[in-house]
């Protein structure tokens, strides 16, 4: 028997009892709908996560100074002063896999504009390359400071959106003068909105300025950040009482012991930075970038063969992997639940098909009497089941898609259409039709025509 004839016959048979067909497919509709919605929401949240990660900057490598420990007590990252701006320049010059590199200096202090004040989350001293690495180079307003500003230690800064909102209340910030730790700064630009990072920290609550000025005019030594027993330096506290005369506190030159002075009569302006941020040219070049940076830094720091690195390179990909594995786990879990509902739907189909076979026993007997072979009957009932499942699957796909659209518009969850999920859903629906339709169809085909015709 030709395929289209079988399909047409099955459609006619289903059309004779449309309400029952509708209710039968409901299980599949809900199951497939749930699967599609789960997949789309899952894909959406993982792509949103990718976006958040990308907002940190693509293929970013973080170079931290090494860790020191005193009598077995770790002083924490940054407790050793090893990274310098010269390291940064050397990396920029000598590492072909590195797209951009920038030094960063952190500070945490109060900024004041008129009667308003706030303490931004991040106060970063860096070079313009930092914005390139962070994928933040398009400013909302104004212009970025220049490399020249960095060299000259110009008192200019960029403000994040949150800071602008808090200090300026809708006024334009560009060209205004604010005070950071009582040092006057001119606002040259406003950063574009970036949103929260992976940890939920507001990235717009930020101030960016040339690292030289942050280093020498605002922040003190970063050592004091972690070493709490040391007398608190003025610059890393927003409490101004301890430091009535700010701006004079940080020593530009580290204090030298008498031996050092004798050994090194020349003055060394040792300008360490807290961290270097580098971006590899592509995700594939991250390992080679790490190798090159390691080689350059070891040379810069004059480390001998066998000596441990006095710095740490961290790859943000590990973080990415950890975070995305969590969402993948959740999605898979929900998918498993949705799959169970699909199986329940399949059992529903089997149930109704069995009822249908019993109810249509006389029809089956008649069809056999007029010449239908067992396999014709099998094919007919199997086709009916598969059609039910496929139609249910199609409606389920639409419903799931609509559901995820609703979630997107009403709950503002990120959602992403997934062609793979749709293909899989169609496949699953057909498989369920065959798997759960086979038994009733087989039962129908095994009926004895004489008995079936006599059935009341």
């Amino acid at each position, binding site marked *: 028997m030709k395929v289209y004839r079988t399909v047409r016959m099955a459609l006619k048979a289903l059309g004779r009892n449309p309400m029952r067909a509708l209710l039968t497919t409901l299980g599949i509709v809900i199951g497939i709908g749930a699967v599609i919605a789960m997949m789309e929401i899952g894909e959406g949240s993982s792509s949103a996560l990718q976006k958040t990660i990308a907002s940190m900057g693509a293929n970013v490598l973080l170079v931290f100074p090494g860790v020191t420990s005193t009598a077995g007590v770790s002083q924490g990252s940054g407790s050793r002063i090893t990274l310098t701006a010269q390291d940064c320049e050397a990396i920029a010059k000598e590492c072909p896999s590195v797209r951009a590199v920038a030094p960063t200096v952190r500070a945490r202090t109060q900024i004041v504009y008129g009667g308003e004040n706030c303490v931004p989350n991040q106060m970063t001293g860096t070079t313009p390359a930092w914005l390139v690495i962070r994928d933040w180079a398009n400013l909302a307003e104004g212009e970025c400071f220049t490399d020249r500003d960095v060299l000259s230690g110009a008192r200019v800064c960029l403000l994040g959106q949150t800071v602008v909102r808090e200090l300026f209340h809708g006024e334009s910030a560009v060209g205004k003068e604010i005070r950071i730790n009582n040092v006057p700064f001119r606002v040259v630009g406003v950063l574009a909105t970036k949103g929260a990072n992976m940890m939920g920290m507001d990235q717009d609550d930020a101030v960016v300025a040339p690292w030289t000025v942050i280093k020498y005019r605002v922040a003190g030594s970063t050592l004091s950040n972690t070493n709490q027993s040391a007398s608190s330096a003025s610059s890393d506290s927003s409490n101004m009482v301890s430091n009535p005369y700010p701006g004079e506190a940080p020593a530009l030159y580290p204090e030298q012991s008498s031996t050092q002075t004798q050994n090194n009569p020349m003055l060394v302006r040792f300008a360490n930075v807290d961290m270097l941020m580098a971006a590899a040219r592509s995700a594939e070049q991250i390992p080679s970038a790490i190798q090159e940076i390691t080689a350059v830094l070891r040379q810069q720091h004059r480390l001998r063969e066998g000596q441990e690195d006095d710095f740490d390179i961290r790859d943000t990909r590990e973080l990415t992997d950890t975070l995305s594995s969590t969402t993948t786990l959740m999605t898979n879990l929900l998918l498993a639940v949705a799959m169970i509902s699909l199986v329940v739907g399949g059992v529903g189909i089997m149930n109704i098909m069995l009822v249908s076979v019993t109810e249509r026993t006389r029809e089956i007997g008649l*069809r056999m009497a*007029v010449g239908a072979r067992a396999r014709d009957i099998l094919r007919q009932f199997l086709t009916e089941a598969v059609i039910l499942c496929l139609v249910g699957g199609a409606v389920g796909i639409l419903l799931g898609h609509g559901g995820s659209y609703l979630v997107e518009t009403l709950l503002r969850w990120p959602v992403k259409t997934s062609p793979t999920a749709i293909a899989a859903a169609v496949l699953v629906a057909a498989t369920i039709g065959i798997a759960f339709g086979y038994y009733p169809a087989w039962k129908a085909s095994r009926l004895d025509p004489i008995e079936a015709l006599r059935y009341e």
Partner: protein
Amino acid sequence: MNLIELRDIQKTYHMGDIAVPVLKGISLGVAQGEMVALMGASGSGKSTLMNILGCLDRPTSGEYWLEGQEMSRLSPDQRALMRNCKLGFVFQSFNLLARTSALDNVAMPLMYTAESLSERQMRARAEEMLRRVGLADRLAYHPSQLSGGQQQRVAIARALVSRPTVLLADEPTGNLDSRTSAEILRLFQELHERDGITIILVTHDANVAAHAKRAIHIHDGVIVDGAYSAPSAEMPTGGIQ
């Protein structure tokens, strides 16, 4: 040789350990173009014989020749093919598909025919058959919209649509009132006389049997009377073409 030839057909049902013989050696012959009534009280074995004639069942022993072909040893699929091509069934309870037009009901057996007809050819043949039973104006009607007599006419058209050699009618008037019964029997006679179709009518009603040229009486699984036609009887030739 006769169109249908049964030789010592026996059928025994097994109910647990007890063997129940239903047909105890039936031998009969039906010639091409005959109209025969198969008569017997209920329980006489006439339904079983009918099932064997209709290739729905196989005899326990004996031979069944239809158009020179031995039927009792065929596989189920081959028997299905025989039912489709050589045999037409008319049932007491019509057995039409509900919520399906008369035309589709009639065309249904063609779906299973080995020879592949186009949709249009199938419709044309079904229409032709419905016209022949006098329902040309009821093509799109569903069984529930037709009277009992009309339903049986649809069933007869369905039985004839694949141009069978033999038409088997099992109590075709059992569910009909006497007036419609007469109409249906007239239709059978007409088909028999005009188109020369071989018809076997199963009935327990002597009035119905009276329409046939010959009656085969069966009692307790044995043929009492009329197993073979009288040699002098004139045979119309040719099946329905």
